[in-house]
């Protein structure tokens, strides 16, 4: 099973601890808000808004080293554009997994 990691964050920081701390703090703020927004628009069956927030979330998944999850998000976003959300349950599991990871940083 794919596990989130800080490889990308470490690579961008390049040993700059202040930047690393700042970046993680931003993730801790932005990510929960984006998950909350996702859950809200998804439960309202607002496919356009759901596709839009999945687009943003897929970047966060990439930042946390979740390449396979990113691939799923790409497919999911495309399907949402034609009003299909069959990947929702799987996607939420990934979101929660990454949420736990970011909280632990």
């Amino acid at each position, binding site marked *: 099973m794919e596990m989130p990691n800080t490889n990308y964050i470490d690579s961008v920081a390049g040993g700059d601890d202040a*930047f690393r701390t700042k970046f993680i703090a931003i993730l801790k703020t932005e990510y929960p808000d984006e998950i909350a927004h996702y859950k809200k628009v998804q439960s309202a069956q607002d496919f356009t808004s759901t596709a839009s927030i999945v687009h943003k979330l897929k970047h966060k998944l*990439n930042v946390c080293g979740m390449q396979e999850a990113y691939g799923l998000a790409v497919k999911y976003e495309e399907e949402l554009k034609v009003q299909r959300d069959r990947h929702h349950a799987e996607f939420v599991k990934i979101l929660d997994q990454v949420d736990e990871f970011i909280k632990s940083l």
Partner: protein
Amino acid sequence: MTCIIVDDELASRVVLEKFCQDQPQIEVKAMLENGIQALKYLNDNKVDLIFLDLHMDMFSGVDLLKTLDNTQKVILFTSDKDFASKSYEYENIVDYLVKPLTKERFEKAVERARKQFILDEMESPSQDSSTTSTDSMEQVRNSLYINIDRRLINLQFKEIEYVEAEGDYVNVYTTTERYHVHTSLKKIAARLPEPTFMQIHRSYIINFNKIIDIQDNSVLIGKKVIPISRSNRPALMQRINLL
């Protein structure tokens, strides 16, 4: 090169800012959250390079691209891997980066922008409007956007009769409307092309092509009599003599 960063995700903005800080030839002038903020900024300021996210909820990167002229180079970035081919429809795009951004790829893009910038500098400075390929681009180039109650309104230069200072605002008069805009006369003057527009008084800029009549100390535009200040009078007279 001066630049701005436009992205609605703070996490992306700070990564780009960090990469830019490591590049001595780049100066980040502003970090903006959406296309409207960027447009407002660009109405008052000129930059060489724009780092632009395509996917933004309010006034997207594509919307902003349509308003830009070729003097501002753009490096696009997005999570969409399949936009690359479309992106080259816009002449000012020099590169296209896929998120998450890596420093190596970023540096290549900046180098590409720098080379393009140098090439443009070497070319004729009077090249501007002659390279326009579409009517819409031409329209954008001959206009400016003003922000009225969070609504961006496009004003063609040829529609503007004169601009009047009023405290922290200016009034932009067209043949049919008056627009009350929160900006200074100096800032709007920088956006209006010479020699069509000319400041003839500390409170007035006029469209030279709209003058109906000139008397000793005033010009008539529409039904408005606009004073000519003593200091601006020689330049106005010189302009008339040139015609």
